[in-house]
């Protein structure tokens, strides 16, 4: 099942695709029966996120792209709730920066508490999946507790959605194609089979020292193909079976700066 959370006509609603199996047609059916077009609603992150855990350099090709050596432990960082944004949201690019890029990622949502879970049992703790776009403004990178929050935890810099897809409906999370389009041009492709640390490993690794709770979400990293984006750009991230997450870049003046 695919579910969204949207704001419409004065309330927040659970919503489902109005036409299942029609990629690109994201019209929604609200729980109360109304069918509305995707641009008539405000899309929120499709579940209530708890701890947001993100992976750096978890695809070999992207690590190479950024000139990193292979690691023996996942590069994990955390994000706060203020950075989250829904489908069709707007992300600010600060004036004067030289390199701001998207990152299309498979997001794994925890459904059952996970503490010291073995790899073989890990997928049993997953509620479902969604698409994440984890922006970075690399101009602000400093070599202290990388990646620093000014790069990775900016307001509106972590886009989730449009749909939360039940784990039961994702046959093989280790074989999902990812694609990003900027203004309709394909700029990034990858497949989750190329993750350095796959989903079961990440749950085993994390749950060894921190209890994962329902709503906690793991953003599993991005493959190569990150390019600079500028105000006005429309960035669309796709993952097989999860839909298409669209987001627009805006300049400072739109934010009164």
């Amino acid at each position, binding site marked *: 099942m695919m579910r969204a959370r949207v704001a419409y006509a004065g309330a927040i609603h659970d919503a489902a695709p109005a036409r299942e199996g029609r990629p690109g047609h994201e019209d929604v059916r609200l729980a109360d029966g109304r069918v509305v077009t995707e641009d008539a609603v405000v899309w929120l992150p499709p579940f209530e996120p*708890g*701890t947001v*855990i993100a992976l750096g350099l978890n695809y070999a090709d992207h690590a190479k792209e950024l000139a990193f050596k292979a690691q023996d*432990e996942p*590069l*994990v*960082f*955390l*994000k*706060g*709730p*203020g*950075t989250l944004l829904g489908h069709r949201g707007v992300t600010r690019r*600060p004036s004067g920066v030289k390199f701001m890029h998207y990152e299309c990622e498979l997001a794994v949502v925890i459904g059952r*508490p996970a*503490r010291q879970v073995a790899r073989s049992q890990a997928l049993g703790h997953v509620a479902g999946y969604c698409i994440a776009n984890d922006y970075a403004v690399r101009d*602000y990178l*400093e*070599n*202290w*507790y*990388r*990646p*620093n*929050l*000014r790069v990775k*935890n*900016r*307001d509106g810099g972590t886009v989730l959605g449009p749909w939360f897809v039940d784990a039961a409906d994702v046959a093989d999370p280790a074989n999902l194609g990812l694609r990003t389009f900027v203004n309709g041009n394909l700029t990034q492709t990858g497949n989750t089979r190329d993750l350095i640390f796959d989903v079961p490993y990440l749950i085993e690794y994390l749950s*060894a*020292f*921190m*209890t*994962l*709770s329902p709503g906690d979400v793991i953003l599993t990293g991005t493959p190569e193909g990150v390019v600079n984006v500028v105000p006005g750009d429309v960035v669309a991230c796709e993952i097989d079976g999860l839909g298409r997450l669209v987001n627009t870049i805006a300049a400072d003046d739109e934010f009164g700066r």
Partner: protein
Amino acid sequence: MVGKMQAGTGCFSMPFDVPPYRLSGAVYGVLLNHRSALAALGDAAARPPHGAPPVAPVLYIKPRNTLGLSGTVVRIPAGTPELEVGACLGMVIGRTACRVSEPRALDCVAGYLIVADVSVPHSDYYRPSIRFKARDGYCPLGPAVTARAAVANPDALTLRTYVDGALAQTASTADLIRPAGRLLADITEFMTLAPGDVLAMGAAAPAPRVRSGQTVTVDIDGLGRLSIPFMDDAA
């Protein structure tokens, strides 16, 4: 004080008699904000892999599984002889703080509490693993929120850390590189803080070390006392 916390579950409650009445669960901390902490690095701050001392506040996140109340046992993992306890003044946000100016910043603060940033000691400040700081229970805080109006000056508070009753560290918020208002201004320039969010303003160095069986207490002028018992994971 009465409170309930089930370790690692994120279920957390603490009695408040001031807004915002409950914490959001988001706890941010600032490293190297106490002069002693940056000074302890010496010339290394300017050498590889850092290359330069920090420009923006060095922030980190204590996720909800780390939150604990006064008296909750903190577990020391096998193979780790000691943990570090960084006593910090924590600001509790009372209303949405976005792009606040330094002179008006404290208007966004509901109150203050004690935050103990517990870590597995590590020497890597370049890209340390979160397993040093994000373990279950590694962010005791409390014992309650003291209203902003009851704290005359958050930039002149003394923090005392005791290990089994013996004074192990005395520090002052007067020695923070970025005082409260400046921190809020610099952080909310790029990330909005919400009501109930906590910002731990930074610990002094060297942080006291603690072994299994010991109890750390932290007190801050006017904010009460936080007590943290430590035990081996196996115990």
